[in-house]
């Protein structure tokens, strides 16, 4: 019943034997020990588990590990390069775009996807772009500010 899944996560390749029903988020968290990706709901609403799969933001609670076979995954742990924070990480810190931090990895990965498609978004476009990610602490005010700051930093 078990299957082998090969995934490249944050540039490292892993092959794991998994139950077909195993969720990608559990593969990341429990098989690979990458606990930066969080689980906040059971209905694909909260977006805390958002990761990049082949460059696109997906909710890893809604992807089976077997569906990710041969995929290239980036999680929050893989965003900083050679010890340098990604501009989104820098701007979330700088602009106080997080409080409890639980939604933050998912927020940042979604923002990453958003900015890759729209490098110069309006506030309204950012707000709509975040509709799949919930935050209960910040009222989104500083998240929007942080994403604008990161967009500006990436553009320059």
């Amino acid at each position: 019943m078990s299957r082998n899944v090969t995934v490249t996560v944050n540039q490292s390749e892993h092959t794991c034997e998994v139950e077909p029903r195993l969720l990608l988020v559990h593969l990341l968290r429990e098989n690979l020990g990458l606990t930066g990706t969080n689980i906040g709901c059971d209905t694909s609403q909260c977006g805390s588990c958002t990761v990049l799969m082949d460059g696109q933001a997906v909710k890893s609670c809604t992807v089976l590990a077997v569906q990710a076979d041969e995929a290239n995954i980036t999680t929050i742990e893989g965003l900083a390069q050679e010890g340098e924070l990604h501009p989104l990480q820098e701007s979330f810190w700088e602009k106080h775009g997080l409080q409890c931090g639980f939604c933050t990895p998912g927020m940042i990965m979604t923002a990453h996807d958003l900015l890759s498609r729209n490098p110069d978004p309006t506030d309204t476009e950012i707000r709509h772009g975040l509709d799949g990610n919930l935050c209960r602490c910040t009222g989104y005010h500083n998240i929007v500010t942080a994403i604008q700051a990161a967009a500006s930093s990436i553009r320059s």
Partner: protein
Amino acid sequence: MATRIFGSSIKRREDPKLITGEAQYLEDIQLHGMVHAAVLRSPYAHANIRSINVEEAKAVDGVIGVFTGKDFEELPALPCAWQAGGVDNNANTPRVLEIERVTFTGAAVAVVVAENRYIAQDAVGLIEVDYEPLPVVVDAEEASQKGAPQLHENAPGNICMDWACGQEEGTEAALEEADVVVKQRIKNQRLIPTPLEPRGAIAQYSPASEEYTVWMTSQAPHVMRLLMTAFVFGIPETKMRVISPHVGGGFGSKIFLYPEYCLVAALAKKVGRPIKWMETRGENYVATTHGRDHISDIEVGVKRDGTVTALKVKTYANLGGILSTIAPGIPTTLYGRMLSGVYKIPNIYCQVLGVYTNTAMVDAYRGAGRPEATYLVERVMDLVANELKMDPSELRRKNFIPADAFPYEPADDILAGLKYDSGNYEAVLDRALEVTDYKAFRQEQEKARESGRYLGVGFSSYIEVCGVAPSAWVGVGGQGWGAGLWESANVRVHLTGQVVVTTGTQPHGQGHETTVAQVVADELGIPFEDVIVQHSDTLGTPFGYGTYGSRSAAVGAVAVYNSLQRIKDKAKLIGAHMLEASIDDVIYEDGKVHVKGAPTESKTIQEIAGQAALAYDLPEGMEAFLDDTAYYDPPNCTFPFGTHMCMVEVDRHTGQVDIQRYVAVDDVGRVINPMIVDGQVHGGIAQGVAQALWEHGVYDESGQLVSGSLLDYAIPKASFLPSFELDRTETPSPVNPLGVKGAGEAGTIASTPAVVNAVMDALSPLGITHIDMPLTAERVWQAVQQNGNGG
């Protein structure tokens, strides 16, 4: 004097771990040999449990054990730690697993322990429970009427407590004499706190030392240890260590002792392996506490000139099927006693019936009692303004407690002897009027109405109470809180001059590691980087009551400050000794002890700390080390205030409410870190706006939670909300030496009535004066239709 960082928006030192995924939340913790628990919950809101068959579940490969309430019969029901003061409380609290009867959908009745979560969840589905369903009641007023289903033998009429404050007779007489009396029924709907991280616990038991270690998603680890050891397990506190790892938001719902925390600890001993239990969001919605859920009838008496003379309130407070840890204290002390608001109301009376219903436990949710009080008072002000055709800002101004009246004792002993500490209510109103250009808005509104557009502006001039204390006032002999409410801190200056502060409070997003370090760095005159703040582990931190009620600065940081004063006193003694000067001739300034008038003859705090730690040459009889623990019990609470204004446009054809502007002018006393305070206000406003417009915890008649998931319960998305405009005044609190008041809940308390008042203002040409929340498009549209002008 060196530059102070108290008052600076320095970046949070918490964040590097949080933005890189390194931070460990409860679910991230893995222990060697750990197994997983999953809980079976009642699908019925009210039922007798006839029998439970666990055989099939036990037979599943990978299941280690299946347990029911009978396996934990020796453990008593959980304690209710805050019963309403001065009255009988017919308390009923949950057991670790219910044995005979359930009183709400989601009550825990059995548990599976298995090698992994998937197997545990599979096996939960195979447990068979034979229930005998009983009649159900979910509405607090209905539950209190004759003939309603009865939930508990010791609570006739489902009444947990019948509590009152103020003066009934005087208030009745003042209502008789009033020129105008306005009456209104106002509902404050049930909310579901919804921190992004659900609850969970991990427990490990050592047979050799008979010690438990329990990790839990808690806002108050010391209190959890106390309640679990002393009241549930009957063991000394020393036999348990409780740790809150990174906690993903709480908003009150993670203050309480829940059955599952005790269950997991008991299972760790029974099974002999470390156990993790993490609730799903679905479980979080049915089994974690809810908030609010009041039905109130108000009568307010006024003179023709707008002077409010009397306020009478009767409230049915829904407490749920069984009591959570501090449930009765919320709709009494933290609600009734705040009903004077920012106004000099000479006659007040409030009766609160705390009622059991077949719903989830109701307890503190961000603001906890104060949002309910503020919502009533601020709706009342608008109802009165509308009745008297007065401008709502002028009516408020007319009734404000004047700035020279502080400390102010609200009428009719409604605050039970305490006084509002400081305030300047006109200043925040004036600032808000200025920022919004109120006069211009009224002109714009007039013009818009002519073209069939409905703009509205809403005010909320609020007060709240933070740093709830003193212990003697709030405690069992007074307001019924079954403990003290002081707070603690230990400051230790190590040999190298590095400072470690441990606190009894527990941050879960508020940034204590940063703000407390700001206080310490300034007081000692040392670099911010040299201060480390540790917390959230009963091993290594002094006992503290935890973080809620916006108390971590107003009580917790003051304990730190008091410790620092004693550290400085001792440093002066050592410094004087090192300088061969008299103690009377030295002062502590900018991180040094120096001889008065001779700043170069000095010893730095680092040199002194080294001397104190090595103890080669200390004053005669002095103990080594700079180390001090303070326990601070404030003489009074603190009372932040402000005025929020919301501008909306309502589409009368669809009922849609569009927030065009939101302006908040808050006064939370002195501000340690403005960026963090702004963040707290933003998040608070979002939660309060959400109550006004979208969120509603709804039970159907059979007691099923129909808003039981994030699909059905509308916490706001980014696109629902505008950006917020913040401003503030700073009126220091005289209660504590830092002058701080508290900022965690102000936004939530203030914003709800501002939004509702704005919508009512928009709809006033249609003769609509009140719609109960949430003001969804459907509700607004229906009100417009029913009003007769809707065509």
